[in-house]
């Protein structure tokens, strides 16, 4: 059901440029206005989300630890698993963001007869890292469409990535890897009953959206070639704030690709995909485990009105004396000071 809903939304998203460009001929709307709008939503939406998170207090220290805390000098301290200083936290964050270290620890629960057992499950990590790193390389490669004087690092990445020349143009390795990664992430939700039970439309939709973006891109790269020179004129115009529709024919597939990318950008800040910035704000990851060294002040804390025993005793002294309750003189002296 969730899957079908996402598929319907995706089909509508593909139909919009088909109708808008193919039937109504709103080329500049789809080539210029919508991409700009989507990019603006992406930027301001993400900044809005960042500020929203930055304003939320972290009342407790809830860092996750999987190793020995720093304590006595002769007890070996696990720097990454239980970071105590902020630079150790940075290090842990770095491995988390670039290598998905905590996902590498993913476990799978299963029954061995009647016994519940846990085993290491690296497939999720592999699928995720294939997808994310390929996406990064693909984004860097796309700079060729937006920049005139392309940095040599981008050229080198493209050259390495197009190593396999099975026909022309060469096949990008990352294109295959991203499909493998995404395919695994989607299949996992479909095949594994436990994950399937947890999957909503908001899980399927981003996957399907990114898969269709990748597929339209690969189709344009290998089979249904558009006029890339005309496309570069358009995209270069967009990047230099000098947008104009080029004379050449931008293919329909390109409009679909562009519209799906715009949808992804606009959807990004308001979906689960914001985990891109959310990961930096996860208190379980970004707090040092230095509870014993420095006190974490709850930002919610306000000065509480309280009455000490001495003050209380002073207030009820007469009544207490009358009732024969012993007066603690030591406390009384404190109160008088």
């Amino acid at each position, binding site marked *: 059901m969730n899957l079908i809903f996402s598929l319907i939304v995706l089909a509508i998203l593909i139909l919009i440029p088909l109708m808008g460009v193919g039937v109504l001929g709103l080329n500049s709307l789809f080539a210029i206005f919508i991409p700009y709008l989507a990019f603006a939503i992406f930027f301001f939406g993400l*900044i809005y989300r960042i500020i929203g998170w930055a*304003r939320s207090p972290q009342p407790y220290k809830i860092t996750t630890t999987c190793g020995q805390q720093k304590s006595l000098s002769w007890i070996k301290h696990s720097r990454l698993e239980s970071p105590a200083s902020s630079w150790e936290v940075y290090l842990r964050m770095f491995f988390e963001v670039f290598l998905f270290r905590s996902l590498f620890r993913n476990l799978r629960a299963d029954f061995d007869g009647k016994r519940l057992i846990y085993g290491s499950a690296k497939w999720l990590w592999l699928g995720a890292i294939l997808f994310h790193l390929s996406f990064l390389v693909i984004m860097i490669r796309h700079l060729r*469409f937006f920049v*005139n004087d392309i940095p040599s690092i981008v050229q080198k990445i493209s050259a390495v990535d197009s190593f396999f020349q099975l026909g*022309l*143009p060469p096949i990008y390795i990352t294109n295959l890897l991203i499909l493998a990664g995404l395919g695994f992430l989607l299949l996992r939700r479909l095949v594994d009953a436990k994950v399937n039970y947890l999957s909503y439309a908001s899980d399927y939709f981003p996957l399907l959206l990114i898969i269709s973006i990748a597929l339209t891109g690969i189709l344009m790269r290998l089979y249904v*070639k558009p*006029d890339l020179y*005309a496309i*570069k004129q358009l995209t270069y115009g967009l990047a230099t704030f000098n947008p104009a529709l080029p004379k050449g024919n931008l293919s329909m597939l390109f409009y679909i690709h562009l519209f799906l990318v715009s949808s992804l950008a606009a959807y990004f800040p308001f979906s689960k995909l914001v985990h891109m910035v959310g990961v930096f704000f996860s208190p379980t990851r970004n707090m040092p485990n230095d509870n014993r060294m420095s006190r974490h002040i709850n930002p919610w804390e306000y000065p509480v009105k309280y009455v000490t025993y001495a003050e209380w005793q002073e207030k009820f002294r007469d009544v207490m004396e009358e009732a024969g309750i012993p007066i603690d003189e030591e406390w009384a002296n404190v109160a008088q000071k």
Partner: protein
Amino acid sequence: MYNTNKVIIGIIVFIIFFAMPFWLNFGKVEALPKPELPKEEKKCIEDTDYMKAYHMKFLDEWRKTKVREGKVNYINNEGKIYKMSLQRTCMKCHDNKEKFCDRCHKNLVVQPDCWKCHLAPEEVKKWQ
């Protein structure tokens, strides 16, 4: 806002990363280089739109039919016959690789390895 300094640094890094397409062009905005079309001829082998988009598939096809199947001639949709050759057909009309093929390719990070073995017209002239 908590940790204001770090958050602001984070936002700046994020903007710098995602605005790369914009600032990489900063101060270097100029018209894209245009490939120089042959002057004597009017028409390419096939339709221009087709050539623009598909010339690499077209060359691949030529390469396969010539090298693997041993056929020599290509007949275009107007019935004209061409010898299938990168150097002696394409580059006869497009006689300046630098100003034609490369202008387009450099601009779009296309790095064909053809010229490691095949000779560009500029190079051929040097040897003659």
